[in-house]
């Protein structure tokens, strides 16, 4: 006890009085009243909170929440302090060219010419396979669409990938394999009517604080709301849970199969729903094969709660309880994020979440939905929907599918069968080939030299002289700058106009609020200039600005299930975001997909209430996915599991959040979280330096000892450029989604 109760009251009494006096704060900070407020979207996570940017004297003075957006005026600290990011003195203001090993200032002409020449030479010498584009879930939709078109249609190179491959490729794989179409069917609004939350592999409280707040408020307003959290760490999310299952990392497939087992065993399944809307499938010899409900039940017979309990190292009763809570509630919402996606069984794990919803019929109803949270502000809208990945074409089309290629050729006005039919290189393959088969690369709005797994392996390629790397970047201290040959200074966030698409299919327009510093330009214009100089057919890129690109992309969307033709620029300007499908200008947007009456893509006279139109038979797939362990399991030499992630105030590689003094002060350096029992055994005290060794590298971090990590697990955040945790992570990828397994690798922990 810090003090007695009476002392505590006395402190309170003193504090109450001191509060009136405005102790210690000196003056209240001068309330800078902005001249104008400009609507936009937060630059950080995939929640996509609406913001209002307060502009004063042509500078961003402050940022507050947009009361009309889903966040109802609420922001987390990162978002609220965005002004320090955009006004940072570390912004790039002129193009840079590497001369004699160092980056020196150059003119736009020099930088553009050099880049275009190098790309043209590479194309002539090595063909389209030797050029690549590495994009980002933080780029505007227009930027991603344009880059995708320039490379795939203009340069005939399918080497178009982006950091969403590291972030939600498995979620895409999960949605597509189960429902035939990508993106969640529900919206954030489901949180207000759900009675049970199944949160697996997501530390919502730190990574999506505003959604967590909504969820916590829901629980507070209705005590009958139950929260199940599956997470090997006792995160703040897990602390408000009614049931926390601290499973051994990488055992969630067994867990969810066991939950399905219990659901059938207890007759909690919705046979009316799965009898009508679900088909059962399994992969046999690499091909999908139809299965029956009986096959599924036979498959599940192997996953008794007791057996799963042994695998997951949680009590069997907890698994039964979780299954019952899930199935008995009136509306269940599942939330997951990198804990499921960044895994070599990422797609499968996603399938199994969908399975639970499909067998209980808790899907496509208010509050009942399987909802994948996303980490970047425009991964959904910008990259997934525009198909800016190596195997995709816009609107959910596949490169490998000739029909899809032909559709896009027609839309883009290209000769039939002129698109490159071979899917390009996905992220890790692309960087592995850099300097070898890939000779010229353009990186937009991301920091791969810090965010790639097993990063030393790839930075070795980035150092090669046989590669040419041009990057479009806003900040001078991004790790990737160390390897760039040409750097283009980009306009940041609300310095240009464009659309962000958040995790709930909501498209919002970020309006231009301020001018960009120095010679920085919008990335759209940089891409257009480069394309023109590279000799891309001018008819393919008849754009002047992002609004032109949006018009084209909007028209194209009408020819897919991602129809948002009704979202004109003017409408986006007026509203605080719209959810697609939104086929006409008077359509209000769609909260629930695949449901007659809600989803405009389901005909009003469709015989059934639900219609999973993404699949040819109109049914969603329940996949029989057996349990498989992670790529690298702990052994005698490396007995611990290392998992990586984020902390609340820092975001991703920290190039933005580290510009905020308050955040830099609170979260200066990376640390490693160690379980207290492990720490005791290893003689590690709080604050001690701890050495982490994996097969790929080693790192010394200061220890944070506590009960957060389960025994045998250590956690480290990846925001610190001085301590690249990704030098330790493993780069094994999911067979289907090609997403790397950041979340699990074997590590040795010792006192440094």
């Amino acid at each position: 006890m810090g003090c007695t109760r009476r002392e505590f009251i006395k402190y309170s009494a003193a504090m109450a009085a001191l509060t009136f006096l405005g102790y210690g704060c000196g003056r209240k900070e001068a309330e800078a009243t902005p001249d104008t407020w400009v609507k936009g979207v937060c630059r950080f996570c995939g929640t996509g909170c609406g913001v209002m940017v307060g502009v004063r004297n042509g500078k961003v003075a402050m940022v507050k929440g947009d009361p009309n957006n889903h966040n109802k005026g609420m922001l987390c600290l990162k978002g609220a302090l965005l002004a320090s990011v955009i006004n940072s003195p570390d912004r790039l203001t002129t193009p840079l060219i590497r001369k004699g090993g160092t980056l020196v200032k150059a003119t736009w002409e020099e930088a553009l010419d050099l880049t275009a020449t190098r790309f043209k030479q590479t194309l002539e010498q090595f063909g389209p396979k030797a050029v690549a584009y590495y994009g980002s879930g933080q780029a505007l939709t227009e930027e991603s669409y344009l880059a995708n078109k320039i490379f795939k249609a203009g340069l005939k190179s399918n080497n178009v990938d982006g950091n969403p491959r590291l972030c939600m490729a498995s979620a895409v794989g999960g949605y597509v394999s189960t429902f035939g179409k990508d993106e969640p069917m529900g919206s954030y609004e489901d949180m207000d009517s759900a009675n049970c939350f199944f949160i697996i592999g997501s530390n919502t409280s730190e990574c999506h604080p505003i959604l967590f707040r909504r969820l916590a408020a829901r629980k507070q307003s209705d005590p009958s709301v139950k929260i199940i959290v599956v997470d090997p760490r006792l995160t703040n999310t897990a602390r408000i849970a009614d049931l926390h299952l601290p499973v051994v990392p990488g055992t969630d497939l067994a867990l969810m199969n066991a939950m399905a087992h219990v659901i059938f065993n207890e007759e909690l399944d919705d046979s009316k729903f799965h009898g009508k809307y679900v088909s059962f499938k399994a992969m046999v010899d690499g091909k999908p094969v139809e299965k029956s409900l009986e096959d599924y039940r036979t498959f599940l017979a192997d996953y008794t709660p007791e057996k799963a309990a042994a695998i997951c190292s949680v009590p069997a009763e907890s698994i039964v309880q979780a299954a019952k809570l899930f199935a008995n509630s009136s509306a269940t919402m599942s939330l997951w994020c990198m804990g499921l996606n960044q895994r070599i069984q990422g797609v499968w794990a996603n399938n199994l979440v969908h399975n639970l919803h499909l067998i209980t019929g808790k899907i496509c109803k208010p509050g009942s939905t399987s909802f994948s949270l996303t980490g970047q502000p425009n991964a959904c809208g910008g990259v997934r929907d525009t198909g800016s990945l190596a195997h995709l074409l816009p609107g959910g089309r596949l490169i490998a599918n000739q029909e899809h290629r032909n559709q896009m050729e027609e839309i883009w006005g290209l000769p039939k069968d002129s698109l490159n039919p071979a899917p390009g290189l996905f992220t890790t393959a692309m960087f592995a080939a850099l300097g070898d088969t890939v000779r010229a690369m353009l990186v937009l709005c991301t920091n791969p030299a810090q965010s790639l797994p097993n990063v030393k392996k790839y930075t070795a390629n980035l150092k090669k002289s046989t590669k040419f790397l041009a990057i479009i970047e806003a900040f001078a201290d991004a790790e990737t700058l160390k390897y760039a040959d040409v750097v283009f200074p980009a306009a940041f966030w609300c310095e240009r106009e464009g659309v962000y698409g958040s995790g709930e299919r909501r498209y919002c327009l970020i309006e231009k609020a301020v001018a960009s510093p120095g010679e920085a330009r919008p990335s759209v214009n940089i891409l257009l200039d480069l394309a023109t100089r590279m000799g891309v057919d001018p008819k393919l890129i008849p754009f002047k600005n992002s609004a032109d690109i949006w018009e084209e992309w909007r028209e194209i969307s009408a020819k897919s299930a991602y129809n948002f033709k009704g979202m004109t620029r003017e409408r986006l300007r007026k509203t605080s975001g719209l959810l697609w499908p939104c086929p006409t200008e008077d359509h209000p947007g769609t909260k629930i997909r695949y449901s007659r009456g809600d989803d405009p893509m389901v005909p009003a006279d469709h015989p059934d209430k639900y219609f999973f139109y993404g699949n040819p038979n109109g049914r969603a797939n329940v996949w029989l996915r057996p349990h498989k362990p992670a790529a690298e399991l702990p052994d005698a030499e490396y007995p611990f599991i290392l998992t990586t992630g984020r902390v609340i105030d820092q975001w991703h590689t920290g190039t933005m959040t580290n510009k905020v003094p308050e955040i830099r002060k609170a979260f200066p350096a990376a640390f490693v979280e160690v379980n207290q029992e492990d720490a005791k055994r290893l003689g590690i005290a709080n604050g001690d330096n701890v050495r982490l060794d994996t097969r790929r590298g080693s790192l010394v971090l200061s220890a944070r000892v506590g009960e957060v990590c389960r025994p045998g697990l250590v956690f480290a955040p990846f925001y610190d450029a001085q301590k690249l945790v990704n030098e330790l992570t493993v780069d094994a990828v999911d067979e289907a989604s090609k997403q790397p397994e950041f979340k699990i690798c074997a590590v040795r922990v010792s006192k440094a």
Partner: protein
Amino acid sequence: MAIASFIIHTTRQDLAGVKASLSQRRDATILPWESPPCLVAVIERPSKELERVEREFKATPGVLSVATAYLNIEDELGGEGAK
């Protein structure tokens, strides 16, 4: 016993003097404050006497005004509060 806190306003010149005289009290914790010149007093007394304490504060030479900032009488209620 109740616990209460008071803000006692004074002038810059009198601050030290008021602090000195209030510090004589055995029932009060005094926290001086420079800007605005005032003191915070945390008092532990039966609530019946608080009115008198406040008058005493007001009567202290150099004191301009006294305001109550916090009052907790939870412990006095004892069983009564529940009835």
